[in-house]
């Protein structure tokens, strides 16, 4: 039973860490655009940077 002296505070600390993380992510606006966030995760980041010259007008995909 002595192990509970370690385990219970540890479990609470982990839960608290989760809560702090949630509050931080809420404050930094990560729940403002859930739809966009879902797509950002799978967007290709390694495409070459766009040319400095404006490209020709393109239609919508």
């Amino acid at each position, binding site marked *: 039973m002595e192990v509970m002296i370690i385990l219970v505070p540890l479990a609470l600390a982990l839960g608290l860490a989760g*809560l702090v993380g949630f509050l931080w992510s809420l404050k930094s606006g990560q729940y403002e*655009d859930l739809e*966009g966030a879902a797509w950002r995760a799978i967007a290709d980041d390694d495409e070459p940077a766009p040319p400095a010259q404006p490209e020709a*007008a393109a239609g*919508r995909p």
Partner: protein
Amino acid sequence: MHVTRDFSHYVKDLGAGLNHIDLAVEGVSCAGCMAKIERGLSALPDVTLARVNLTDRRVALEWKQGTLDPAKFIDRLAELGYKAYPFEKASAEATEAEESRFLLRCLGVAAFATMNVMMLSIPVWSGNVSDMLPEQRDFFHWLSAVIALPAAAYAGQPFFRSAWRALKSGNVNMDVPICIGVILALGMSIVETFHHAEHAYFDAAIMLLTFLLVGRYLDQNMRRRTRAVAGNLAALKAETATKFVGSDEISEVPVAAVRAGDLVLLRPGERCAVDGVVVEGRSEIDQSLITGETLYVPAEQGTAVYAGSLNISGTLRVRVSAAAEGTLLADITRLLDNALQARSRYMRLADRASRLYAPVVHATAALTVLGWVLAGAGWHDAIVTGIAVLIITCPCALGLAIPTVQTVASGAMFKSGVLLNAGDAIERLAEADHVIFDKTGTLTLPELEVVNAADIPADVFALAGQLALSSHHPVASAVAQAAKARSPLMGAVEEPGQGVRAVVDGVEIRLGRPSFCGAEALASRNANLDPEASVVAFSRGTEAFLFSVRQGLRPDAAKIIAGLQRRGIEVEILSGDREAAVAAAAKALGISEWRAGVTPADKIARIEELKRSGVKVMMVGDGMNDAPSLAAAHVSMSPISAAHLSQATADLVFLGRPLAPVLAAIDYARKALHLMRQNLWLAVGYNVLAVPLAISGVVTPLIAAAAMSGSSILVMLNALRARKVAGEASSWK
């Protein structure tokens, strides 16, 4: 004259040399658009942040001060293929976003506490039947208290505040029993823990708050999202005015930046954005959006023009008498206020349910305590049983019953092209059994259409369309659009107030007034045949043709009207337009009941008359003259092309050219109301089963917690059924 665009009204100074602007963007629908826009805008020099919000369809931009004109971003987005417009968040929207964030924060805290208290409760429950030492149980109970008390104090704020407000004004709402239940359960649990009892109720109290917060958050989020999209659409309608900044210099500014006394320029084909008086110029004005009258009204020096009217033929200078918020006619505002007050007495389903619920629950709990005391139990045991009753009747299934259905139904409506302005609109819409349509702009399309395209030879039509591209006149644009013309003719000359002419293959062609094209005879014959249509003539050498142009009916109007009638809904037209025009539309749509030439006050009188006979009226209209009747009706709907005021007044707004969303909205609302009622009965049924058990004192916290969660989950699953309705109205594209 050089036109500049001045959007400085929307630019915010962030400090540290940075500026910020929000843009509403049309057509952003996927991740591809998001990446394209962000790359395209970040490539501009000095832009420090370009971030797309896919939920709200908006772009936030930051750039180094003084180097860039916001108009440049709009141009860049146009190059990429997106229409954009700067906008300012309405204050209501900002408040709601803040509230929604607060609810989510409360939900996070409550969920954290629930999980941890549960983690401590389960060993206690299982330990009570096995070999747990009383000291260990007390330790776990004290730990639960340390977690649950501060968490409940924080996460319960939305309920405590609302209950306090209700009590202060002498009412009881659903939050009152929630607060009493939570506070009593927590207080009693502390007492129990002191006395080394086997049970404490910390877990039940905090779980109740978590479930209720889920419902509250869903409810809030539905309204917030709709408001954001509606705000975008309002911005994309690009309400700008061309203002004189010097004696001969003009600048395009947002309407919000125009003040009374300013001088604005109104060119042919432009919609007036302000109220004012003409000081120079001569033209015709289409006031159909304001009065419903489709015939043009002449305008000259001294004529009053109103926001929403369309300038047809000549350029006007207008002295602004009222702008932005002040553009309404005083009597329309007065009628509107009266009508809105009358409607605010409507009570939502949730309120009606809680009005019954609160006293019943309290009485049951009090009687339980009293009963046990009379039966000889101690005060302590009696109160513990009373609390069990309060907890097991926890209104969380009741609290979730309505918002979950609303959220699911509003999402489904959104997909069928309907935006909700008010949460209780679904309930009111479902009850509607009589629909009144305005004609102009509602049953008909807001823009003009060529009606006799079949009578014109194809080559003539194509040529006329090309020539029409050189004119700003709205009737000419209708011809150009109908002919699908792309390439304007070189050397076309516009004769002000007459028409356009050009020479093709050595032959002169003209498009414009019948007199300009030598087609008076044709025109007078047509005037007898089809008196409501506007005409534009086209001549090639000595040949003459006549295009008949008018506002066409919405493509599926007849089908939708028939669908409404099949559902037992009566349909009626009330229009400010002339009798001949309304009669023709009513005949084409199979509507037997119609009135023409009615004023806003007449419309209200008719609605009141129907209301008195117990009919629930739905009003569908778009004009500024419809706004008071939209407010007076039981429920109201506007097309997205409607005047700003009407749109803000209507409970629902529909998108696109077909009328189908009107029928779809009714179907979804009826299904949703059915599910809301079903959910309420589920919640009641659960209580009927659980309460006797609680009163008899056999309910352990484990059973209470399981029953409570089970009923909540059942209600949520049932709400998901609101996504689908049977039949023709489910798709609108």
